[in-house]
């Protein structure tokens, strides 16, 4: 069954030539010399006033990176990246020492205003209607860390969070102020030697967010980081580290955009999550990097390593992502289910248009007893794009009682694009129960029958079932993001091709 017109129209509305965030901020910036060498790394480390151990850590990663080769297994195709033709550090030139938000360069403020991201401490985001009966406004606050090229320009609600004991600050600050935490956790989930891009990131990462939620604390508001690439020829290498100590809870959101340019830009981030006993981390992403124009020129290369470690018993990590941007996406947010009874979730909607190439999915690695995971992935390919789901589910010998449920569906709009599914399912324990399905028709014949019996057409019935299903994914997003995401994904999936 081909896609229905409504779906086609909705996807068209977010086609690559409709990119709304493609403007450029004219601002003076300070850059590291072009190219990559030990000197570049010393420069970055120096700019951040880092302690010696951090520099050593970076240099070790750099030396390791020199021995590695770029991975080629993903279903993406791009010209060879010249790693010497990039700037690895770019920061807006500070006019003077800042003491309050009002002193931030107005150009930058304007940029974030245009993007709809409040750098002032407002209770709720613009365009969000308060939900009737949705608790006090207190619960709706959202703290923002704004990262502009290589540096964090502002972090809001720091003081209020501090009162709750939550540490939320740029990672460059955390390295100076909380070295014991950073040293303990940095690289403990994604080791410096993990993969080509993660190793590169370890050597040159410039900023990103650091979150520590102490034992028993439920983070009083949503935390979020907004990443903006502005400068030309610059790679953005951010590093995010989130730790939820015993019994803690945190919900974190991430958004990304970039100006419209003819050249490709590299974004190679690393995100590490650590959940101790009974802790829960919810990580949501709305990725809307510039995808290139309708001819496939320009756009961001998004090569990201995201991994969560359910280190403690009964811990839970949940990834939700809405992927609409980037020329090339290469990312697999994963969960290592190490603690007994730990749980991993991955909800993803990836929409590709134009000449975009998406190779994304997840890894659920079951190591502990009675661990469970759930993967819900929807891919929609239009234009001349290629959209691949690639996922691994594996149960270790000792992972008795491991359970996984996976559903990955994809939809093609037009006959010039491709949708692909590459699941790897490895069961090494007889008590592990894995279920994997990739069809819409399999979702529920009963429900369909029920709807049709009550007078809906087949298509309406499928639409109802699937929309209800997608809404399940949407509900995983905190409301502030759900508003934006709703526009992107209130798309019916009739004619899904598995």
């Amino acid at each position: 069954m081909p896609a229905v017109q409504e779906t086609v129209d909705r996807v068209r509305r977010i086609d690559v030539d409709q990119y709304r965030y493609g403007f450029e901020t004219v601002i003076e910036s300070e850059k590291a010399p072009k190219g990559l060498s030990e000197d570049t790394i010393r420069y970055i480390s120096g700019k951040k006033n880092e302690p010696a151990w951090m520099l050593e850590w970076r240099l070790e990663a750099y030396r390791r990176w020199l021995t590695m080769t770029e991975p080629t297994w993903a279903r993406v195709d791009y010209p060879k990246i010249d790693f010497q033709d990039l700037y690895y550090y770019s920061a807006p030139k500070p006019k003077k020492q800042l003491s309050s938000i009002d002193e931030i360069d107005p150009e930058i403020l304007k940029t974030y205003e245009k993007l709809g991201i409040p750098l002032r401490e407002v209770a709720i985001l613009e365009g969000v209607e308060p939900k009737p009966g949705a608790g006090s406004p207190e619960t709706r606050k959202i703290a923002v860390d704004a990262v502009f090229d290589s540096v964090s320009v502002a972090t809001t609600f720091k003081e209020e969070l501090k009162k709750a004991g939550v540490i939320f600050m740029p990672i460059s600050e955390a390295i100076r102020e909380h070295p014991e935490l950073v040293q303990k956790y940095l690289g403990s989930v994604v080791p410096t030697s993990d993969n080509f891009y993660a190793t590169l990131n370890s050597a040159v990462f410039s900023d990103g967010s650091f979150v520590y939620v102490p034992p028993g604390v439920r983070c009083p508001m949503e935390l979020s980081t907004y990443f903006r690439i502005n400068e030309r020829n610059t790679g953005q290498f951010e590093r995010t580290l989130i730790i939820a100590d015993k019994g803690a809870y945190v919900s974190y959101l991430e958004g990304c955009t970039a100006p419209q340019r003819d050249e490709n830009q590299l974004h190679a981030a690393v995100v590490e999550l650590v959940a101790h006993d009974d802790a829960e981390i919810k990580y949501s992403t709305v990725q809307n990097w510039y995808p290139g124009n309708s001819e496939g020129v320009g756009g961001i290369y998004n090569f990201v390593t995201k991994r969560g470690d359910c280190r403690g018993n009964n811990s839970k990590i949940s990834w939700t992502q809405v992927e609409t941007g980037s020329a090339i996406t290469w990312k697999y947010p994963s969960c290592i289910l190490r603690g007994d009874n730990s749980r991993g979730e991955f909800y993803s909607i990836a929409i590709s248009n134009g000449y975009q190439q998406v190779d994304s999915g997840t890894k659920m690695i079951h190591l502990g007893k009675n661990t469970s995971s759930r993967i819900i992935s929807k891919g929609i390919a239009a234009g001349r794009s290629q959209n691949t789901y690639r996922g691994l589910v594996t149960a270790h010998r000792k992972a008795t009682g491991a359970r996984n449920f996976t559903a990955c569906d994809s939809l093609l709009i037009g006959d010039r694009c491709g949708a692909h599914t590459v699941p790897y399912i490895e069961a090494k324990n007889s008590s592990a129960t894995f279920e994997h399905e990739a069809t819409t028709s399999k979702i529920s014949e009963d429900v369909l029958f029920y709807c049709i019996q009550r007078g809906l057409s087949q298509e309406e019935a499928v639409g109802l079932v699937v929309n209800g299903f997608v809404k399940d994914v949407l509900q995983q997003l905190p409301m502030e993001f759900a508003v934006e995401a709703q526009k992107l994904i209130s798309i019916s999936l009739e004619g899904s091709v598995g």
Partner: protein
Amino acid sequence: MNVALVKNDSGPAASSVFAAAQGRLPGAGKVADIRREAFAAFERTGLPHRRIEEWKYTDLRALVREVLPLAGTPDAAALARAKVAIASVAIDGATKIVLVDGVVALELSDLAALPSGVSVRTLRALLDEQSNESRGDLLLTKASDPMLSLNAALATDGVVVTVADGVQLSSPLQLIHVATASKVARYSRSHVLIGQGARAALVENSIAAEGAAAYQANDAAVIWVGDEAALSHVRLMRDATDVVNVSSELFTVGAKSKLSLFNMTSGGAVSRLQAFITLAGEASELIVNGVNLLRDKQHGDMTLVVDHAVPGCTSRENFRAVLDDRAHSVFQGRIIVRQDAQQTDGKMMTRALLLSDEAEADSKPELEIFADDVSCGHGATAGALDDSLLFYLQARGLPEKQAQALLIQAFVGEAIEAIEDDDLRERVIAAAQDWLEARA
């Protein structure tokens, strides 16, 4: 001077095996060139290993280690042993073609009394025909794979079977591979052509004669199914338990045809069937069913690549693995739907039953879709026997083992029941039964 021999990754150099085999390989001139090129292609990767995506779960460098020397021509004693062995699998009334250690054994085959419309020639004879150098084509395939290249380099014999247009065979053709020698490798390559409107059943067995052990089998089959034709192909792999069997089958299916492929692997230490199936004509139907029944440290792999090149074809793949002890089963299925192949209907299901905590089942059901008006899906499950079903049966007085056997039978039965021919289906069920009984 004493020099310690260090074994490298692919064991004793495969090139010395290839050099030593030269005198035994049919075909000179162009054919020999093709063999050299194929061997060079193999050498570029050597034995496939886990870094080669298609071989991720079947790492022959770790599992096999070396390429064994080519098997010699079977002597009278070997043929006598082979004759004893084939008695257990021979189907009454079938047209038998027997290959012993990769060489067609005319005296054991029914080539003298072929049904009308069927012709059989040996690959060896065709390659040796000096007059026709284009016979080298018999060693070429579209698919590229290191083990297929090795097969092209070293294929010693095989059969070229043609079923003429419109011929409806009432009894099956049976291709029996028998191993009689130990610690050697055999390479055969056969071609089967089912003419337009023809109908046939092809049964393929791989067995070991008494005393044959630790051999390597690399059998390839290139099969063409013409327009409006039907082929039912059943493979029963019961090699000795310390054997490596890597078989490749390449199918091209014409329009309005039906191909039904069934494979059951219960023998061998390391087995793999890799089938590359191209649906090249519209409105054809493909049914693939596979069963792995493995125990001890057996490793069984079924790898399928189904290429929907034209519109309107249907494909169904259904795979079942039952794993005991430390067995390891692999299923890799890939459905490709080309841009023009609209109205494709492809479904793939893989299920693994783990009877032991040390067994391992790996599945990789892949979809690669370039057309927008298609319906494709895949499903995969892995797990142990359902406790509530076991309890139900035991509550009705069945001993545990018997209850398990019943459930296992039902589990693999879903794949076996696709075999249309009653007699063949019964044989397969009996073979599955043998495996179950050996368990109890």
